[in-house]
């Protein structure tokens, strides 16, 4: 108790039993503790402890994958918050959006971030794909991870698409009308598609009917898209993100082995 001063407080905290029980590695930043910081942490241990100087430069990887993942985190966070005020029914959906814009504290910026974050995520996925292509990172042994990446691109589009119906504004209804009418034209399983008339597809038994939960975009559609947008697609996307990251780790960063120095 003698040397209790403000200076010693941080020291006392990091040496306490509670702190040490949470962070197993020591606090001083020597080489050992830096390695342990990665391996002992459940969130970081997907990263290797050492990383090549060549591959870690921004001008090599453009940070595109990192930013895409971070945008997904932002979208999850803002999306969950928006769910507290949004009711997916025809009479309320649009007015809940108006409430978010004008009444809910910080509602407008949350909505803006969710919307612009989605735009940015689509763009960053494309940038990430282009970067991966131009550095030949899809070549063996990373072929399958490229395939997983394309699946992730697809689900990013599906999330954006299912997201637009939710505000129930004019863009929402027409984008989804057009989008689901494309499903109507799918060969075989859509009633206006090629060969569909041969297997008896009608307006009330094809793929579009299942998507809409009816024959026109209405309350059933809003609920279906809400569930898909908030539960279905994010879970599938998360599973594929996990696979994607795991494969990056297993197959190694393509920038780890500099071809020419």
């Amino acid at each position, binding site marked *: 108790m003698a040397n209790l001063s403000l200076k010693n407080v941080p020291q006392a905290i990091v040496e306490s039993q509670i702190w040490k029980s949470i962070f197993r590695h020591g606090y001083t930043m020597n080489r050992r503790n830096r390695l342990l910081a990665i391996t002992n942490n459940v969130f970081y241990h997907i990263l290797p402890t050492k990383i090549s100087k060549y591959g870690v430069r921004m001008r090599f990887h453009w940070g595109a994958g990192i930013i895409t993942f971070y945008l997904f985190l932002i979208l999850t966070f803002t999306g969950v918050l928006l769910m507290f005020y949004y009711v997916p029914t025809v009479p309320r959906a649009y007015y809940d959006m108006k409430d978010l814009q004008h009444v809910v504290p910080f509602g407008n910026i949350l909505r803006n971030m969710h919307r612009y974050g989605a735009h940015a995520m689509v763009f960053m996925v494309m940038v990430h794909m282009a970067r991966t292509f131009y550095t030949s990172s899809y070549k063996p042994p990373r072929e399958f991870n490229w395939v997983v990446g394309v699946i992730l691109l697809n689900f990013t589009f599906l999330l954006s698409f299912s997201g637009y119906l939710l505000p129930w504004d004019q863009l929402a209804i027409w984008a989804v*009308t*057009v989008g689901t*009418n494309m499903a109507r034209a799918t060969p075989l399983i859509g009633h206006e598609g090629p060969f569909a008339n041969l297997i008896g597809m009608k307006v009330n*038994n094809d793929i579009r*009917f*299942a998507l809409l*939960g009816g*024959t026109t975009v*209405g309350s059933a559609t809003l609920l279906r898209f809400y569930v898909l947008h908030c539960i279905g697609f994010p879970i599938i996307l998360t599973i594929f993100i996990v696979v994607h990251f795991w494969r990056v780790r297993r197959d190694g960063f393509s920038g780890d082995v500099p071809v020419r120095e």
Partner: protein
Amino acid sequence: MARAAGALSAEEHATRRRLLSFLGWGSFVSFFSGVTIGSLRFFFPRILYEPSQQFIAGKPEDYQVGEVSTRMKKEQRVWMIRDQMGIYALISVCTHLGCTPIWHSTENRIKCPCHGSNFLVDGQNVAGPAPSPLFRAAISLDLAGNIVVDKSQKENQPGKRDEPPFILPLS
């Protein structure tokens, strides 16, 4: 190992195993394919809560010859059109991807804002991506002389669409 009385030969044993394995995997596969089909069927509702497709569109006298009336469009998404033959109800759902086209009287054309399909007043598709003509709804008169339009019954093929019930003949 000595063979006990009543025990099975290796061959017999193998057949029984194969049968059991077949039954086991068969029940496994059939159960889960049943679950899959059931889950897919789940997404096709048996009952729909959608508005009625029938409506009353005033009296024949309300429409002038040569007029494309938009009075029912705001509520019912239908143009009431009267020509020399009679009145027909043109459903304003683009046959391309289901947007609501707009009637442009100066050009005498119906144009879709989504992908630019062009139709003539009789519903014929003339330009843009629309694959088929606009549909006409069934139209008739009730006992009180009101026009009754039924959008659930529709036709867009030339010939068929120019005959009742898709046109209300008026002299």
